[in-house]
């Protein structure tokens, strides 16, 4: 028999599931958009850089380089959509009603994050399947499991980070501005679309300080083998610290920023 905690977590997940499966808008942003990046933007640049793209000491096709970027973008995008969902929920009042439901704040967050992780796994499987079947990306299958784990951890980190902000912002216009700025700054000041070696010093420094770079580099290492193990371990550690800090930031916001 299900205990109350499991029942509550499943209820949160069921709610997310119904929202996602009854709306094409959500399905597009969570699942389709990253794939269109891979299949349109990726293919375009793959043809433009026909001789391949050099990252570190390796030269690979742009599609292979970009695969990790799409996985990372999907984690980031799913987290943004969930943060936006948090904001909408608070804006229309249902969020406060949730807080009167017979569940703890932790169960609420766990339900949310578990659904997001499942969504990101589905997204990663779709992206990897498309990449290998349609674009013939030479995937390192022996570390594919690590790629899935990386996607889950990445989704968690961004979910906690962005949700903390979504719960703090009061105004729709402010939140939209924040999300747009975060989207452009974090996506383009990172290794998501291009290698960092050729960038100007200031942009390279900014990109190295960006958790999206850490996440993308780890995923790139485990999917196509670009990167050095020493650097990847440091980046993975840095991302775990980012995840931990973001988790406490989100929990604190939920406990003290919302319930005053």
């Amino acid at each position, binding site marked *: 028999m299900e205990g*109350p905690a499991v029942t509550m977590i499943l209820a949160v997940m069921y*709610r997310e599931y119904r*929202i996602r499966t*009854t709306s094409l808008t959500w399905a597009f942003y969570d699942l389709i958009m990253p794939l269109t990046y891979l299949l349109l933007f990726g293919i375009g640049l793959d043809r433009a850089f026909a001789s391949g793209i050099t990252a570190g000491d390796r030269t690979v096709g742009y599609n292979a380089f970009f695969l990790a970027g799409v996985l990372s973008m999907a984690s980031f995008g799913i987290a943004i959509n969930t943060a936006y969902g948090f904001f909408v929920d608070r804006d*229309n009042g249902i969020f406060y*009603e949730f807080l*009167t439901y017979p*569940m703890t704040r932790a169960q609420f967050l766990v339900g949310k994050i578990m659904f997001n992780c499942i969504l990101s796994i589905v997204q990663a499987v779709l992206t990897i399947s498309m990449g290998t079947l349609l674009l013939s990306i030479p995937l390192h299958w022996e570390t594919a499991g690590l790629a899935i784990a990386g996607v889950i951890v990445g989704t968690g980190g961004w979910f906690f980070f962005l949700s903390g902000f979504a719960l703090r912002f009061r105004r729709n216009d402010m939140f939209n501005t924040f999300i747009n700025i975060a989207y452009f700054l974090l996506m383009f000041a990172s290794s998501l679309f291009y290698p960092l070696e050729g960038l100007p010093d200031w942009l390279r420094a900014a990109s190295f300080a960006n958790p999206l770079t850490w996440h993308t580099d780890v995923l790139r290492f485990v999917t196509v083998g670009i990167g050095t193990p020493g650097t990847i371990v440091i980046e993975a550690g840095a991302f775990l610290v980012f995840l931990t800090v973001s988790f406490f930031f989100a929990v604190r916001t939920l406990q003290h920023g919302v319930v005053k």
Partner: protein
Amino acid sequence: MPEIGPVSLILLTNRCRFIDWACTHPVLAISMSNLAILVEDLVKVYEERTDHPVRALDGLSLVVRQGEIFGLLGRNGAGKTTLLRILTTLSRPTAGTVTVLGLDVVQQSYAVRRQLCAVLQENAVEIFLSVEDNLSTYARFHSIPRREIGARAGAVMEQFGLREYRTQKVIDLSGGLKRRLQVAKVFMVDKPLVFLDEATTGMDPINRRTTLDAIREQARKGRTIFLTTHMLEEAEELCDTIAIIDKGKRLAVGDPRTVKSFGSRVVDIRVTYAPPGPASVARLSPFPLMRLEHRNTTIDVALDADRISPFEVLQELGRLGTVVNLEVTEGSLEDAFFELLGSKGDTPAPWRDRP
């Protein structure tokens, strides 16, 4: 022996700081376990650490008994929503104690939430889900067995006239329908305590009546209903106990008759004139009336009999035209409300002329 009303009860419980919930109260000889809510010296201050702290609740004490419909009245900013937020664990008290069914709302907030369901002031509905999905997700959050959810949702949709919108996304519904759905949700579950914050706001008269009937039915089944409303007639009709608060303090509490007695010096007069209606109502301006409403051929007046003779006012009203009907009644809850708030020095607009 005089009956001990809720007013006395609160005065006594205020002196009794440490109450053993399971025991019989030593003075009142009633079991404390019959109480649904006990609020003692509750203080809530917002922006506490700033130069301009806001004291939303200021030493408020209330008692709500199990199975009763309790109405909380007050103007905007009186502290109603703040109290509701504390009772539903959405907010923490600055000082004082609040127990819900014997559970402390701060120390045992999770256990408190297991006993209640709430309709909050906002249109709290799942805008991206259909009407039916809203009901079924709500039921899941309240641990209703899956096999029962469909039947309950069907019955609730039928009761609240939502069946034809069953598959429609809530984002496409009107404000009134959203509100109806929000209220309907609490009837999906069987929690012993129901909080309704201005539940009937925005509803048409038919749905308002349905909602009031449903609330009454739930109270008959033993659920405790705690509601806030701006509609005084609704509170008078529905509630077993009414409390009026202002600026975070309690002004009056008791059954509707007791609270109305705070306005017992108030006399309501309604005069209907033959067409074309009364001459200028400005002739009544020398009288310090509590309320004057003029609509078509009818004039409604409320006055404080301690300050003005009703007969003088009646004489003057008689001079305004040919009287075809005259009603003189004791004060209503609305009169008591105005009088109580007015006694604090800022009566809310007693003179109202309707075209």
